[in-house]
């Protein structure tokens, strides 16, 4: 049987359609207390004094802690470390990010105190009783304006709020291209900030076992192992072997649940300090001011062309708003995931890109859907459109003229990455055909003659997905390798538990990965169970983002399945007294037999049992049937697309 490529019903759905999803907010533990966080209403202010006396005296309040308490590590909990940044380009100035602000708040929503109470309602009541005396300061908001002399300064150690300056490409060649260009087009663009808004608000719960000195943290995260690593190494200091992080069902992420957030530090810290299991669930209002935002670029960009529309150079300057702190992967987005895609689908001989990462008094910005790559596509496609208009060319034709020819792959771009394969000409041919582009243009001309507002948009884009291999991403500045892990564990009776380091929060891994392993082993999907999201169960994994799960996590499972097939075949060969090269592993039926004798086949389950029974294994072979793989990809994947859209606007209603 073959499942991959077939439309199968999702195996995770029965629990969701019956209200049995296991979200962090559903967790109730004996003796549980509830946390709520007092947050700054100011973008930028000194904290002069915090009076939590009335809150502490409220009936039902267990404890109130301020940022100072966390930093000093009072109440036997040890000090909290600052939240680290996991992508730090050379010469980056990283502002200290306390889980709760200590002397100064730097954005609306910055936490200043945490209440632990017997119910969430009491915790919220207590927030209102905390009196914080602020001295408001001037705020910097716009990235480009914040980088100028005289702008309000967030941190003494970060002059002009410029945290880093990152460049890529050939500046001299690009300047030459522009000086020799027949035509130059230029745009000032704003790629606006947006709020990811996963439908499940973030939530964190924690339970401290003071006798075993073990901490369990539940968090709605896309990557529990990364959170455990950062909690252990930087913020909480609990050894990884005594720290369990569980990301159960997660209600969407869109990037915003990749990062290590203050609440993942605060909640376990207060759980330890109060010796109570503690749960915190963000309100939607809190999500708006605490989940990392996306985009927020101010960009100046220029394209150099010949008279005939051939692109000869691209020059881009971007001021990327980082928000008040450097979120876990924030500097990666407007640099290595952005400028590396400036070649887009086109042959551009000379490219120069530079980005200023600027801190401002706004909510931190980090990866969101596509992360850097959509921003790159946006500016290039806008420039190409403008060039077509100024040169009097059709927007489809100017693109065709500049597409990387199909016979030039693998294509080395001037901005590090190598596109492995592609046929962009065919891609645009297909889009043109599907849209009926030429007819669309005729219909548009007729509509316009009638005074109707009809527009046609054409664009292309490329993504660098499934980032890797690890030596490349770490050389670009990533503090983690980007491989993925997968264990295939065959039980004695022949069914299979699969443990993946990848994490599902809507993607349907429990179905997809079961399809893959079922096909690899020749078993029915029902025999495969996929387990993810719990650091005590799964191997070290880097989680889900950047379209990496199937490409990298799926490949790890294929590798492990191959190892299982190999061992199964060896055991079968031994038991059937045949040479290994004469064996057939029938993936249609999950049977193993000697070539020409399928009637004397061993079933997968028989061999599985034999592997654990261990009475008759090849000499030197260890018992058991389990395989682990860590798959590190050889390159990114480069999915690409062409789009043609027609929009009509009603002159009267604006619809």
């Amino acid at each position: 049987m073959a499942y991959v490529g077939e439309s199968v019903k999702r195996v995770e759905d029965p629990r969701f359609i019956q209200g049995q999803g296991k979200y962090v907010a559903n967790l109730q533990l004996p003796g549980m207390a509830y946390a709520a966080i007092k947050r700054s209403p100011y973008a930028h202010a000194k904290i002069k004094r915090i009076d939590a006396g009335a809150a502490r005296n409220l009936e039902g309040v267990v404890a109130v802690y301020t940022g100072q308490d966390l930093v000093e590590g009072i109440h036997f909990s040890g000090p909290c470390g600052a939240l680290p940044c996991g992508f730090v380009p050379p010469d980056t100035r990283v502002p200290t990010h306390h889980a709760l602000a200590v002397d100064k708040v730097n954005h609306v929503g910055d936490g200043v105190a945490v209440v632990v109470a017997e119910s969430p309602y009491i915790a919220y009541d207590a927030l209102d009783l905390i009196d914080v005396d602020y001295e408001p300061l001037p705020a910097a908001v716009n990235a480009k304006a914040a980088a100028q002399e005289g702008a309000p300064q967030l941190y003494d150690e970060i002059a002009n709020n410029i945290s880093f300056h990152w460049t890529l490409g050939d500046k001299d060649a690009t300047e030459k291209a522009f000086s020799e260009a027949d035509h130059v087009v230029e745009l000032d663009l704003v790629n606006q900030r947006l709020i990811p808004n996963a439908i499940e608000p973030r939530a964190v719960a924690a339970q401290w076992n003071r006798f075993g000195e073990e901490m369990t943290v539940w968090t709605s995260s896309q990557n529990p192992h990364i959170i455990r690593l950062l909690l252990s190494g930087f913020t909480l200091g609990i050894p990884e072997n005594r720290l369990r992080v569980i990301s159960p069902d997660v209600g969407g992420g869109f990037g915003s649940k990749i990062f290590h957030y203050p609440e993942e530090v605060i909640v376990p810290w207060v759980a330890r300090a109060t010796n109570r299991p503690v749960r915190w669930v963000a309100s939607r209002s809190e999500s708006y001011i605490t989940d990392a935002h996306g985009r927020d670029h101010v960009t100046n960009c220029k394209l150099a062309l010949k008279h005939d529309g051939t692109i000869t150079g691209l020059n881009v300057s971007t001021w990327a708003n980082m928000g008040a702190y450097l979120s876990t992967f924030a500097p990666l987005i407007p640099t290595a995931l952005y400028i590396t895609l400036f070649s887009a689908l086109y042959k551009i001989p000379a490219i120069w890109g530079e980005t200023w990462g600027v801190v401002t008094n706004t909510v931190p910005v980090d990866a969101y859907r596509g992360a850097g790559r959509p921003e790159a596509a946006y500016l290039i496609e806008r420039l190409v459109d403008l060039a077509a208009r100024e040169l009097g060319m059709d927007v489809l034709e100017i693109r065709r003229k500049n597409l990387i020819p199909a016979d030039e792959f693998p294509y080395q771009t001037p901005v590090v990455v190598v596109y492995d394969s592609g046929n962009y000409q065919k891609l645009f041919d297909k889009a043109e055909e599907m849209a009926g582009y030429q007819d669309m243009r005729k219909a548009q001309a007729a509509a316009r003659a009638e005074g109707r507002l009809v527009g046609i948009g054409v664009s292309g884009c490329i993504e660098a997905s499934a980032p890797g291999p690890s030596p490349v991403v770490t050389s670009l500045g990533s503090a983690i390798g980007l491989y993925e892990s997968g264990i295939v564990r065959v039980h004695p009776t022949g069914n299979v538990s699969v443990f993946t380091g990848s994490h599902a929060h809507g993607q349907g891994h429990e179905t997809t990965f079961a399809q893959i392993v079922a096909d690899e082993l020749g078993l029915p999907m029902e025999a495969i169970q996929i387990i993810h999201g719990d650091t005590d169960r799964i191997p070290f994994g880097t989680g889900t983002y950047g379209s990496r799960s199937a490409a990298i996590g799926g490949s790890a499972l294929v590798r492990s399945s191959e190892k299982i097939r190999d061992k199964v075949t060896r055991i079968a060969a031994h038991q059937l007294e045949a040479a290994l090269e004469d064996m057939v592993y029938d993936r249609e039926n999950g049977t193993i037999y000697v070539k020409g004798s399928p009637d004397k086949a061993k079933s997968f389950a028989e061999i599985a049992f034999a592997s654990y029974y261990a009475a008759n294994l090849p000499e030197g072979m260890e018992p058991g049937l389990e395989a682990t793989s860590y798959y590190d990809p050889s390159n990114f994947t480069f999915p690409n697309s062409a789009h043609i859209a027609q929009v009509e606007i009603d002159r009267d209603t604006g619809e």
Partner: protein
Amino acid sequence: MKVPVSMTVNGVERTHEVEPRLLLVHYLREVLGLTGTNIGCDTSQCGACTVHLNGMAVKSCTVLAVQADGSSVTTIEGLAQNGNLHPMQQAFWDNHGLQCGYCTPGMIMAAVKLVENNPSITDEEIRHGLEGNLCRCTGYENIVKSVKAAAGG
């Protein structure tokens, strides 16, 4: 101060002393442990918490538990009968009407009432009728497909 409330939830009579300010959704989730009804916002916009109150789809974050005193409430946990999925649940499964599953209970509860007495509901009516239920994953296409399938079934 606490006041008594009694209501029938998924066919079972429940009585508790609650704070007058306690929202129905918190009563269902925190007091009764019926966590299938999710909370996605603070402003009654997302509809994740939709339940049936006396036969009407309501957002349980906008109803006080005391207002539901004497009522009959059905939550997503009470929709399947005798181990058989409700046709709307089945339709969401069959048509890939969900991804992360968080909006799904509210979406299904709202959709059940939307198609009642309207087996030939149009796509436009479904989209309009589910305006109060937000989904962040699917783009709604398969939700509309699911609801239409269940209505016709």
